[in-house]
């Protein structure tokens, strides 16, 4: 019973991680870039959302409606001003650029919002739960998981069915050939990053509702997103989704064994997958 509960909590936690991991999988798949400030952007958006909510007395839904377009805009600007200058075969420039950005963002947030942990008032949403056969399941985590599933499904469909999705996959397969077919890679990249950061708008709201956020929390989110992507297997959005579930379950079960062991258990499962199946659970060998 206790383990079934851990399993369910893990899956629900995975829903949160999936919202970070999707954007990272998308950006890496298309540009071979990892944005080190990925997690810091979530925190930044969360803190902006919290400030908006307290300044205008907004509920979670209006905050979400405000944050997602803002996130899309941030992603677009990030690509145009920074990432388009550093995409290429050498991973160093993009790593260093986003690393510097990450440090700057973390400390900027520290100055604006101080080091305190904050959260977004959910007006009771965060404490509601459903009881199924003796196991209490929070309503909010279920919503998070549902949104994550919807985002994954939508992203997958977009990649497979739309004009933009085909252009994205073409650019991911061979940028030069894509350009020779009439695709402007920089425009595609800008939209890809806009979509990736846009998803972080959802993550930001749910992270701030589910638990607390503080300016220094970004790196941990980056690492969870990364582990989820690698566990699931690079290059597929459903891989990132499943990877998030595996990571969530590992952490939840680890936590039941010993509260100090939760995060570590996730890392260990990640290293184990890397050792035994480096292409990830869903990756092509």
């Amino acid at each position, binding site marked *: 019973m206790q383990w079934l509960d851990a399993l369910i909590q893990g899956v629900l936690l995975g829903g949160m991680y999936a919202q970070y991991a999707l954007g990272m999988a998308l950006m890496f798949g298309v540009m071979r870039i*990892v944005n080190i400030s990925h997690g810091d952007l979530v925190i930044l958006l969360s803190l902006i959302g919290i400030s908006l909510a307290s300044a205008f007395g907004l509920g979670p839904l209006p905050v979400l409606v405000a944050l997602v377009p803002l996130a899309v805009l941030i992603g677009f600007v990030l690509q145009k001003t920074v990432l388009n200058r550093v995409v290429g075969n050498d991973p160093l420039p993009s790593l*260093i650029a986003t690393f510097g950005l990450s440090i700057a963002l973390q*400390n*900027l947030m520290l100055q604006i919002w101080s080091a305190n942990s904050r959260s977004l008032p959910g007006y009771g949403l965060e404490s509601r739960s459903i009881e199924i056969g003796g196991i209490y399941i929070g309503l909010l985590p279920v919503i998070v998981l549902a949104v994550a599933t919807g985002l994954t499904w939508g992203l997958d469909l977009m990649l497979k069915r739309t004009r933009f999705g085909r252009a994205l996959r073409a650019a991911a397969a061979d940028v030069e050939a894509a350009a020779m077919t009439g695709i402007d890679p920089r425009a595609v990249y800008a939209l890809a990053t806009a979509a990736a950061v846009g998803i972080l708008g959802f993550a930001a709201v749910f992270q701030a509702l589910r638990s607390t956020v503080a300016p220094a929390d970004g790196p941990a989110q980056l*690492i969870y997103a990364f582990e989820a992507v690698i566990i699931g297997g*690079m290059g597929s959005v459903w891989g990132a989704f499943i990877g998030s579930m595996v990571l969530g379950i590992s952490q939840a079960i680890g936590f039941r064994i010993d509260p100090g062991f939760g995060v570590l258990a996730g890392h260990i499962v990640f290293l184990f997958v*890397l050792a035994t199946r480096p292409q990830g659970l869903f990756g092509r060998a």
Partner: protein
Amino acid sequence: MTMTAVPFADAGLPAVRVQRQTPSGRIALTLALAALVALVAMPWWASTGTIRWILELCCYLAVAQMWNLLAGYAGLVSVGQQAFMGAAGYALFVLAQTYGINPFLAVFLSLLVPAVLAVPTYFLLHRLEGPYFSIGTWVVAEVFRLVSTNLPLVNSGAGMSLRVMKDYSAFERNVAMSLLCATLLLVTLGGSYWLLRSRFGLALIAMRDNPVAAASQGVQVGRLRFLIYVAAAVGCGLAGAIYFMAQLRITPGSAFDPMWANLAIFIVMVGGIGSIEGVLIGTLIFFVADRWFGEYGASYFVVLGLMTLAVALYARTGIWGAIARRWDAPWFPIGRRLIDPQQGTKGETR
């Protein structure tokens, strides 16, 4: 100092010489030796406080140069070298404090730990492509931190103190610290210079410029990367052991502090990646900035972050790159120049 120019004796060819040292290089090498002597002599001219900050400076130099070797030559962008610093630091504390081994001997024994840990770490992480490798190194550092937080052998999250150091007088400690600083620089900076001038040097530089082409010309890129990774782990380990010996205390948070990655990246990128000169310049800038502006805390780090970003966007070769474009006067020449006695410099490999 001996002449490093050797005659090039090949029948039929014009009498060219391969020159491996330059006037600027000779001056720099002389200064470096003088600095090393000054370092060893610190107990006789510097206060304990001065020795402390010079030791910190030496650790910055060492860690930055190890990162430079990894990212600038081997193409391995690590953001988790603190894993090996902390591992060696903890090993020192356990050996000296728990098992009573002489701490100055334990510093060197503790290097076995990063060396041994680096091997499986590399074999796991090298499977990750480019930027994912970097995040992987960070995860490993986090794993080390979490393990030490849960490990009773190292007193778990509470950390350890190096009380055995009280058995030595302040002067004895100063002598030891000075010698360790000198050793650290000799091993990391001197070792790198030696490596780059050795027969591995050309392979390393070829690998830096184009790993694919280097591999096609017989450079064993994979093996070389592995060796550099282990060497850098040991170098960082030595810096960590010395640093924490001076601190007298170690906790999981301080041992595996990502600050070290920030610092190394800032120093090397601003100073100039792929050169020892860049590391010296970058360390000096960082050290001065840290003393002067460190009190501004967060705003200071915002500026550091933005500077790192700006270098990546607009000036990939950093300050030394800009200088080297203007003046051809390397402090630590690693190339070979062909000298034709009649015409002066003919060609160069860098």
